[in-house]
């Protein structure tokens, strides 16, 4: 039987793979919490991508002021009411989704990339490289990340990019520690020793053997971190250091609305709820992914 036999071998393998995915989907869908999480995240992406074209008052995004309609309570015309500048709160919240999601993704991806590289090197080589890299990561962890991010953001000046950089700088140690732990565990696996005995180079061992086997914990941490990144961006906005108005950002919206409590409570309530919902969605999704991807559960 030569290579001609491979087509049906490939077919039976694809069937086995699909069965595998069906089992994972079954377990994911088994806990409806994860479905709710997925729905929220999808909603968030839609709002971020198509938001500005769908909103009732696109002009408000660019900072249009309309004093006539100041502080109108939530109504059909203005689902979330209007704020002190007469802008439609619903429009601002939807527009805010893009900022939060973008910065969340950027922070997590930057943090994950930097952290994985540092963690992989420290974990695989061990010895001095491990000691030095991990001490730096530990030192970074001891520093209060929020205050550090504030200092960096303040120094670099307000604005989205600076906020992202500031937060990402404090975010990578988490991944470094996770990846280092995983790499050290996987390094001892027998199939890695076999590859070493075969004379495989470090690159091949990391690429083909170690990284593919530690992808799931990283994905789970990234999905959970998305929520926290959005939270941190909003926190900076709330303290008035992150993204400055008129760009609509949930944290700064909330910070301004604080002064008009309790009479115009809706100007604060809805941006706050938006942050909570976004973070809650990613946390639910992350929890669901962990059950599905967690090898212990699958074995």
């Amino acid at each position, binding site marked *: 039987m030569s290579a001609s036999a491979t087509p049906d071998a490939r077919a039976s393998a694809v069937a086995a793979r699909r069965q595998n995915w069906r089992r994972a989907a079954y377990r994911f869908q088994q806990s409806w919490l994860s479905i709710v999480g997925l729905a929220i995240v999808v909603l968030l992406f839609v709002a971020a991508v198509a938001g500005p074209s769908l909103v009732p008052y696109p002009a408000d995004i660019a900072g249009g002021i309309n004093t006539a309609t100041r502080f109108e309570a939530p109504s059909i015309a203005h689902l979330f009411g209007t704020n002190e500048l007469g802008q439609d709160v619903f429009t601002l919240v939807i527009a805010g989704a893009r900022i939060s999601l973008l910065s969340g993704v950027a922070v997590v991806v930057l943090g994950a990339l930097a952290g994985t590289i540092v963690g992989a090197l420290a974990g695989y080589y061990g010895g001095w490289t491990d000691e030095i890299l991990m001490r730096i990561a*530990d030192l970074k962890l*001891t520093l209060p990340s929020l*205050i550090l991010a504030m*200092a*960096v953001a303040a120094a670099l000046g307000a604005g989205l990019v600076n906020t992202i950089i500031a937060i990402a700088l404090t975010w990578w140690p988490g991944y470094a520690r996770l990846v280092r732990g995983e790499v050290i565990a996987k390094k001892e696996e027998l199939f890695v020793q076999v590859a070493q005995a075969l004379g495989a180079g470090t690159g091949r061992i990391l690429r083909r053997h170690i990284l593919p086997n530690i992808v799931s914990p990283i994905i789970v941490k990234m999905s959970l971190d998305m929520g926290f990144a959005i939270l941190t961006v909003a926190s900076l906005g709330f*303290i008035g250091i992150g993204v400055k108005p008129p760009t609509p950002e949930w944290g700064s919206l909330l910070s301004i609305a604080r002064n008009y409590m309790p009479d115009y409570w809706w100007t604060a309530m809805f941006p*706050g709820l938006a*942050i909570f919902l976004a973070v809650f969605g990613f946390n639910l999704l992350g929890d669901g992914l962990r059950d599905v991807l967690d090898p212990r559960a699958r074995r």
Partner: protein
Amino acid sequence: MLRFAVRRIVLLVPVIVGLSLLIFAIARLLPGDPVTLAAGPNATQAEIADLAREFGLDQPLPVQYWHYATGLVTGDWGQSIFTRRPVLEDLKAYLPATLELVVVAMVLAIVIGIPAGLLAAVYRDRWPDYVSRVVSLGAISMPRFFLGLLLQLGLAMWLGWLPLGGRFPLTEDPPPFVTGFLTIDSLWAGDPHAFGVALAYLALPAFATCLSPLATITRMMRATTLEVLQQDYVLTERALGLSQRLIIFKYVLKNAMSSTLTVIGLYFGWLLGGTVLVETVFDWPGIGLYATKAIVTQDFMPVMGVTLTIGVLFVAVNLVVDLLYGLLNPKVRYE
């Protein structure tokens, strides 16, 4: 055990030195020039230069660091470029407020979180587990500052049960200073009224601070308890007839506690840095508020002071956690 503890304490010194170096580097390398800001918009070059010389900012960086480091040891943590107040004095004034907030929040989180996590694991996949999972996930996702606003809106403004913000009303005379914790000092002074007032002001900010560590400890405790419940020795204990209660609250708890402990240590540090938000919402006179004001004006001396304090406290707390971990895990102790 002693040798284990001494070794850990000795290792503390390089960490703190490293910490001070890192903080000094970050503060000085960041762009932005506090001196010109402090000197005011229409100050002349000469006035700015005088101000810079006064703070020794014109000397080369290593000399500045040496000056800073010796200052740390002798109690001179530098001055605020704006208020000219020594940083150490401000820290002494503001730190107890933050510590009281964080300690009370963590005590609440531990006292409620540990049993909640334990029960969620024991009643796995039944209604107490589902409820606690959803509530704890929700609690983690709740931004502390938004929660603070909601509490203010509900309990302070609409219902008026609790004060809106601040730490102690000027109209009342605070208890004599013993630990700096108003609640403890008023108890120490045997003044129930002051204790009642202090507690009323502490209630909302403490609750807003404690919700996410409470949820995290519950989830962590649930995860570690589940993991311990699957261990072989639990099956052996059950096979030899030990009661479910004895197994859970003695044999499982001690093992589950040791891994949750490290999370508690980490969270204590994060909270120290994170109270900025709650302090801003409730005008709580803590080091978070103090740091925020300094950061806005790029007054880096106070910022370095606050960051170093939090860093040292964080390292100290984790040392205590490390020692407790050694107590719980005999294997580690004999290494």
